[in-house]
């Protein structure tokens, strides 16, 4: 009942927050566009045969010399910008979401166990988290990427780029989850329902995942949205630095890196349209994250 009321209240607050509504709409639009990219997009930007150099460097439709077929113009390869962006957003979202899922599973699992068992296990997990916190996320991700380059044989490196990138981002984001899960689990451990469950002789895994986990989901959800934004930014940054994805399977960051080459020439759309798109996506996710935080933290209301 209380959970239902809370949901209801959240919905009520949502309807009365114009910025949250706009943010949700933008995010939904981008996510839908990314999901249905292969139906919406004019060409497949990964298939070199599907576009021609003759259509290269066409401006968006509202400028002179544009081809109405390409609404937002084309890049130097003749690649349709809309198609490139939609496929890029899809790749960015896939990497961001899978990294987030891995980070959440590792972080929440370790945090729950640390809060539940306490003692030496807790100390070890938290010391690892401390060391990890001393290294900023982007450094960790770069490092893991560098190690992967050293360990993996050159032949399979290109095929594993997405997996390496995902893992690098996931391993640099798990700490937030672990710390939040641990802190909230500590609070729950003193509650009667948890004590009762332990007294009844239920298995630790059952107490942790069936009893405690549902009661700490709120704060974890907030971390999830904030970290989704971080994951997407991290991927874009790595790809921009040329460490992430190669130019033949561009994510949003790769597109911006390619666009940088046109900074000094007149072809502004190649750089600024993917950039705007990335900013819109991250800003809307961050606004939603702020909104969720306000909901789950009544003190701020």
């Amino acid at each position, binding site marked *: 009942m209380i959970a239902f009321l809370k949901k209801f209240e959240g919905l009520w607050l949502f309807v009365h927050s114009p910025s949250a509504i706009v943010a949700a709409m933008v995010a939904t639009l981008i996510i839908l566009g990314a999901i249905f990219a292969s139906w919406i997009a004019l060409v497949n930007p990964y298939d070199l045969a599907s576009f021609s150099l003759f259509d290269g460097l066409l401006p968006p439709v509202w400028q002179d010399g544009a081809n109405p077929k390409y609404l937002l113009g084309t890049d130097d390869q003749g690649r349709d910008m809309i198609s490139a962006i939609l496929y890029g957003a899809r790749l960015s979202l896939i990497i961001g979401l899978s990294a987030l899922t891995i980070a959440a599973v590792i972080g929440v699992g370790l945090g729950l166990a640390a809060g539940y068992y306490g003692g030496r296990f807790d100390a070890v997990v938290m010391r690892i988290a401390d060391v990890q916190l001393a290294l900023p996320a982007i450094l960790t991700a*770069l490092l893991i990427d560098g*190690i992967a380059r050293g360990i993996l044989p050159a032949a399979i490196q290109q095929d594993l780029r997405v997996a390496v990138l995902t893992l690098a981002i996931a391993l640099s984001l798990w700490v937030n989850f672990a710390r939040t899960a641990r802190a909230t689990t500590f609070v729950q451990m003193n509650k009667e329902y948890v004590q009762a469950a332990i007294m009844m002789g239920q298995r630790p895994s059952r107490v942790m995942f069936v009893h405690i986990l549902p009661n700490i989901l709120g704060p974890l959800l907030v971390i999830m949205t904030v970290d989704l934004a971080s994951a997407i930014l991290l991927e874009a940054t790595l790809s921009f630095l040329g460490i992430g994805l190669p130019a033949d399977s561009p994510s949003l960051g790769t597109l911006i890196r390619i666009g940088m080459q046109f900074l000094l020439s007149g072809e502004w759309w190649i750089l600024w349209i993917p950039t705007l798109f990335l900013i819109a996506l991250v*800003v809307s996710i961050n606004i939603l994250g702020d909104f969720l935080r306000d909901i789950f933290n009544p003190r701020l209301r």
Partner: protein
Amino acid sequence: MVYFIVKRMIQSVFVMLAVAFLAFSLFRFVGDPITQMTGVETSVADQERLREELGLNDPFVSQFIRFTGDMLQGDFGYSYRTRQPVADMITERVPATLELGVVALIISLLVGVPAGVYTALKPRGIWTQTILMTTLVGVSIPTFVIGIMLIFLFGVQLGWLPTFGRGGTVQIGNWESSLFTISGWRALLLPAITLGVYQLTLTMRLVRAEMMEVMRSDYIRFAMARGVPMRKLHYKHALVNTMVPVITIIGLQFGGVIAFSIVTESVFQWPGMGLLFLESIRFVDIPVMGVYLVVIAFFFVLVNLVVDLLYVAIDPRLRLRDVE
């Protein structure tokens, strides 16, 4: 107090050992050092001899002890890529990164603290709303995009400032500084702002939250009731009490500044440690990667140690706790 300092120092040593161990494992297990050091034409026997000479067949623990000992003496080994001593490559690049980071930090504090105080004191004002909305957008724009925007605006369109390199530098001992020439400052400005913007939003938000918390406290209400002038109340009573968290921010932000300097240096081709690190990742130059890691961790641990000591200096309550 002494107990506290000693305890913090022991902790710092353990963090450094952990990082050194990480760097050592990188060097030892990512790729074979011998194949990296020798060419294709080196015979297997020669390779084995080198392996024995370098002590790579010794037990793991004694190798790690020797590695740490070498590091303490400033011997960081040789780069796989350039064959130069890593220590030289790093010390050459330290000034550029530190100058960039410190100037960025100063920018973020000079703008962030006043903005945080203002938005806390006038929470419903139109300016506050504007500033808060701007910072939310600011947090969401990746550092490299901010850099590109600044380059585009001030470098390309207006042509006011250079967009890459360090400009003119002055050599002071081993320290190559760009803080003493006009062209050096002009080159520093855009990267420093780029690096400072993200930190600025964090500073502002934290100062604001802290200030609002303090303004709600009993002693502020009491001072208000006593008729202390508002200006004195805000800046003497309230702001001073937000200083402890602000110092914490500086400590925490240092890590962020170093990390994002990798990105900023890449955008502006700033010849600092970040750019070196990026190159070393691209070429899998493990020794340079490892040493970069150790150096960064050392700065980080050092700054946090100083921050902890500053707490004690600023907040008399922490000194009293020991006496009790």
